């Protein structure tokens, strides 16, 4: 068992190093451009997507279609689903003990952007 411990630990740290090296040396992923294709989405339109299957959320001024992502979210559904159809910026920024989501989450979120949130729009 001692040998298993040593080899598993060595493989683990080697893999951590490989992931780190992969992020340093790989070309940065193309990020979807935000701007001209962005359309304005009002609070009323946002509110029509309050079900988990068609879940949209407004976060930091953007609107994100998170219906496909929700099953992947680590927390239990009751934590995240109530924010569907709403401005979830505050929840996003204060995930745990006042801390915001990680950079990794920010980067993943971009992939789901569909528009700009215009709270007073029609």
């Amino acid at each position, binding site marked *: *068992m*001692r040998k*298993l*411990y040593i080899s*598993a*630990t060595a*493989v*683990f740290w080697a*893999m*951590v190093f490989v*992931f*780190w090296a*992969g*992020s340093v040396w*790989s070309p*940065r*992923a193309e990020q979807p451009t935000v701007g001209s294709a962005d359309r304005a989405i009002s609070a009323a339109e946002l509110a029509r997507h309050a079900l988990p299957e068609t879940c949209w959320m407004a976060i930091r001024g953007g609107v994100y279609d998170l219906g496909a992502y929700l*099953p*992947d979210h*680590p*927390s*239990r559904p009751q*934590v995240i689903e109530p924010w569907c159809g709403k401005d979830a910026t505050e929840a996003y920024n204060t*995930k*745990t*003990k006042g*801390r*915001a989501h*990680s*950079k*990794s989450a920010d*980067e*993943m979120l971009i*992939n789901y952007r569909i528009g700009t949130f215009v709270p007073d729009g029609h």
Partner: protein
Amino acid sequence: MSALRWLSLPLLTLAVPAGFTFWAFPEGLSPVRTVAIVIGWIGCGLLLVNLLLMLREPRLAGWLGGLERMYLWHHRTGVAAYVLLLAHPLLLATDGLADSPTVAWQTLAPLDESWPVWSGWLALVLLMLGLAVTFLRRMPYRAWRWLHAALGAAVLLGLYHLILLGIDEPVLPILAIAALILGWRAVRGDWGLAAQPYVVASARRVAEGTVEIALRPLADPLAVAPGQFILVAFFAGPNFRGCGEFHPFTVSSIGRDHMLHIGVRALGDCTRRIQSIQPGVAARVMGAFGNFLAERTSAPQLWVAGGIGVTPFLGVLRAGGISAPTTLLYLNRSETDAAFLPELRAIAAATPLLSLLAVATGSALPDLEHLLPEAQHLAGCECYLCGPPGLVAALKRVLRQRGITARHIHFENFEFR
């Protein structure tokens, strides 16, 4: 050992992780993320089984096939859980590769994250360091025991990691059970609430570095059979200060008024100190454990003892002898080291069914190929082995080579690390 007892530990080890996985199986995720999460839950279940197996309760030990077997599975489940929990973050990061290598690394990178991930990392590193200490055989037992206990903190921290991720529904009861088991072990096992008070009635030197101690009960005596072992902690006496830690000792005989005799060999700091023990020293005793010699048949028997491993055999012989032809091979470094040898010779001389072969082997592992009977003399024999783990492993190997199947080889190591 009955089939049910034999199966109890494998079944428990399978059932708890399977139950956790069934309860918390993720749906609609990518295959890699699903495997990562399932592996995390299996690791979590194995850790809970691992905690349960460190309890020192005679009834539980009886159900699960003995304390020594529980400790063996405690080691197995601990290392298996560790390997799975190492794979858990690596697989989560692998899932991130579908987005980009940057996302994959950020899934792992502790500096970019917050408490939900930091707590997971901290638990994993504590587990890593705690297990590294576990494998340090030369560390003094007291320091080893405290550092090993830090693994309990790693388990609690790992469960807290899940709660911070928002997965509190199944985790809170698991956290409560884990905390209860750790508290149970600390209060009943380490602080001795499960132990009975005894006092040292006498102590006599039976070989170089070995004393036999008689313990008189001060309250209800424990139910002990010859050949079983008990956990004993020695405290203060008139001119003696014990180390207050529970150590396993085999009962060498049970006297009138439930007086327990144990053989103590100086194998570590605490047992070296016990060599100078005096009557009147307070002790606490837990047990009894083990069924090493309890299920003997009428078949011819080979008993092999290494050093102080002779005590369970002596316990049986003192309690009334044997009913089957028995050979006792007693291996020692030197004749002066051989505890109870004059008494064993006297018992052998008075017992036609017993043949005693005492061999001084020096410090090296003895030449078992020559010492053990040939295959034709072992046919139909039940073999009972008790001694240091290295010796028992070597004995098992030679006996298997001589055609003895595993179910005819019974053994007890007297090491709990």
